[in-house]
């Protein structure tokens, strides 16, 4: 009886260790594949999607099901990241997202779309983008 319980415990521990290793591997693997999906990169370059003021991705023209799915997928992932980091920084998700939006708009390259403070979509040129007055320099 005692040996049986010990074996079960050992098995449970090794399972836990394996799960830990998998989780750790997944966390470590994430930064390595930190590259935009080709479809996302193409949609950005074509001006089909743009950076919204609120820190999320927006569809600039007409929304196709494929485009909508891609934008939703990215925005769900962004929201998860914002929520996690906002909690760590003792801020609200909206505050964190707006801050990220400021920076994401600043990082757009000429030809990409971004949302101006008046809500309109603008094409980034070589000049600095029109941003919310609260955005950091």
């Amino acid at each position, binding site marked *: 009886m005692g040996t049986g319980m010990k074996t079960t415990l050992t098995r449970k521990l090794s399972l836990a260790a394996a799960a830990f290793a998998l989780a750790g591997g997944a966390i470590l693997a994430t*930064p390595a*594949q*930190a*590259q*935009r*999906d080709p479809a996302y990169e193409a949609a950005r370059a074509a001006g089909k999607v743009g950076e919204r003021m*609120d820190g999320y991705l927006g569809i600039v023209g007409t929304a196709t099901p494929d485009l909508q799915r891609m934008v939703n997928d*990215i925005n769900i*992932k*962004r929201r998860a*990241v*914002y929520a996690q*980091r906002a909690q760590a*920084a003792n*801020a*609200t998700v*909206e*505050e*964190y997202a*707006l*801050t*990220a939006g*400021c*920076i*994401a708009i600043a*990082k757009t390259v000429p030809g990409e779309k971004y949302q101006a403070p008046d809500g309109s979509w603008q094409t980034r040129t070589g000049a600095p983008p029109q941003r919310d*007055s*609260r*955005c*950091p320099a």
Partner: protein
Amino acid sequence: MIPAELTARCAAATTLAMQGGARPITRAIRSLVLVTAGAAALGGCISVEAPERPIVIELNINIRQEVIYRLAADAGNTIEENADIF
């Protein structure tokens, strides 16, 4: 040295009747009048009505610049660490 004597003298103790105060029956009438006045005041309650439309608070305008400045460096790192979704 401090001289050992009283610093202030007190008047001798007197009863209410000796001071010419109100008699018990007069006081009873006075308090009755006060209670009646209080009851009348309670009748004039102020009523506050709820607005027909719900109160919507626009949270976006409450985000202050100082908060954004505090988060800017952290958010910049987040974008670089998650370059696949930005």
